[in-house]
């Protein structure tokens, strides 16, 4: 057998190698990997070319203009961008710390028999369809929010802080949207943070316990620093989800498309909600093209957010000084 091997020509070896199918396998999977890349480019290209008319017409300044008048073809993306960013930031500010606390509770403190049921319940929040969040928000949460949160806040803090100023009126606004988005992204953040915490080696915890640390000290000095990068990534993912959320935001945000109000209790609009509510019935091509331009902006924001998240995670994960030695 060995003799035969020695005598076989390079061509035969090549032929046999390709017959193994590994080459084909490599190319095949590569192809499907490339399909995924293509999809991203396809999305980018379609929204880019679809928004050509609006881009030509409005140019870069579109991003910083207010006003939304389909009758007079006077459009500005600023209110939508503002509403998207602010509602998502509210969501992340609320859901970030909450999600991390939940994750820490589930992975570090929770009794074993409660751990699975509780984490399942939390994950259920992610499974509820967006429309239902919207309906619940309209019928249940807004009335409670208005009388229970917004009005007291507006009459106290709102007196000197314009961010919380009244009038609260219908209760619909950026704040409500932010809170509902927070509920929606909470499970995402909690689940990712929990996965990250599970990766923290047990010996890091024991190192702290062995010097007499309390549970919280163990978490604060040993567990959380170790999983910083992953948790930041999880929050980024949550933010991404909040940015793109459509139906729930649309149903509760109050759809004020043309102006930016100081107060968080005032109605606003998010980019995704704007597209969903106007694109289906945008009749003239400029209007349609403008909405596709908003889609482009939204896609661009998520793209940039992803790049940032990657850079951040990459940077943080390098830890303090020195590299990990095997």
């Amino acid at each position, binding site marked *: 057998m060995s003799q035969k091997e020695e005598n076989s020509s390079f061509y035969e070896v090549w032929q046999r190698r390709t017959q193994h199918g590994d080459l084909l396998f490599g190319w095949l999977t590569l192809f499907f990997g490339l399909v995924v890349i293509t999809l991203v480019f396809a999305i980018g290209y379609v929204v880019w070319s679809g928004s050509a008319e609006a881009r030509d017409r409005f140019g870069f300044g579109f991003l910083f203009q207010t006003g939304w008048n389909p009758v007079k073809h006077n459009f500005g993306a600023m209110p939508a961008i503002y509403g998207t960013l602010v509602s998502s930031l509210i969501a992340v500010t609320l859901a970030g710390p909450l999600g991390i606390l939940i994750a820490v509770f589930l992975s570090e403190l929770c*009794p*074993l028999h409660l751990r699975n049921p509780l984490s399942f319940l939390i994950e259920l929040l992610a499974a509820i369809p967006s429309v239902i969040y919207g309906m619940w928000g309209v019928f249940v949460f807004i009335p409670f929010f208005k009388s229970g949160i917004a009005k007291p806040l507006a009459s106290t803090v709102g007196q000197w802080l314009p961010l919380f100023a009244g009038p609260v009126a219908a209760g619909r606004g950026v704040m409500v949207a932010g809170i509902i988005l927070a509920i929606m992204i909470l499970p995402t953040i909690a689940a990712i943070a929990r996965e990250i915490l599970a990766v923290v*080696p047990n*010996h*890091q*915890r*024991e*190192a*702290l*316990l*062995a*010097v*007499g*640390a*309390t549970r919280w*000290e163990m978490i604060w*000095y*040993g567990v959380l*620093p*170790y999983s*910083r990068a992953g948790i930041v990534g999880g929050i980024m993912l949550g933010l991404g989800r909040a940015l793109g959320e459509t139906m729930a935001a649309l149903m509760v945000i109050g759809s004020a498309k043309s102006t930016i109000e100081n107060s968080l209790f005032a109605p606003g609009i998010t980019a995704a909600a704007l597209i969903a509510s106007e694109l289906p019935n945008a009749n003239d091509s400029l209007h349609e093209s403008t909405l596709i331009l908003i889609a482009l902006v939204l896609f661009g924001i998520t793209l940039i957010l992803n790049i940032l998240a990657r850079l951040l995670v990459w940077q943080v994960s390098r*830890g*303090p*000084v*020195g*590299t*990990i*030695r095997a």
Partner: protein
Amino acid sequence: MAKNEANSIHLQDLKPFYGSFQAVAPVNTTFASRAITAMIGPSGCGKSTVIRCINRLHENIPGARVEGKVLLGEQNLYGREMEPQAVRRRIGMVFQQPNPLRMLSIEQNVAIGLKLEGRPKKELAERVEASLRRAALWDEVKDKLRESSLALSGGQQQRLCIARTIALEPEVILLDEPCAALDPISTLKIEDLLLELKQQYTVVIVTHNMQQAARISDRTLVFMVDTSVARPRGLMVEEGETLQIFTAPQDLRTQDYISGRVG
């Protein structure tokens, strides 16, 4: 000598459980102060479990619990009003894998226990240096105290962990196979260190390396897997002076193990 007595550890009917499974048959023994006691035995014999019961780390595993008593001097560590973290503060532990806190610098690693207690900065710096010197690491790291602990080699990391433990000036030091992941030279350094530490502390070491036990310990406990019960569990088969265990073992299983017929 009174202090010696106060630092010795007594296990009384110690029964570690994982859920409903009792991992080790009841253990009764004493770890004398100012001496090194070694626990040897094949893997799965429960020696690590027992050592983790001494500083109450065992109960940190979900579902794990302990029955029986561990006495430090007169005090029952599993007593009602006893706080686990106070116990761990007094009974230091070094683990099999060197486990420096990855996100902290070398200096912070040594100081962490004291820092948690709110000691002043100046004291911290002094204690860090003293501990690193005792752990024979000072010369190697004094120029890079603020660098990541991960920049150290495995042996250095393990000595760093020892420094972290002795910085707290505990009464007892537990070591769970501290040299298992190390090269021969680091092993020797750590053994030297242990011999020095025993002048002051009660030292308990778990090792799978019989030669190591023979080299450094004063007393040796031998653990085996008891397969006579339905679900095999650990069992302490013999204890005694190290010399006696290795030269004239009383138990047949000990003989087999030491001569290398099992394990």
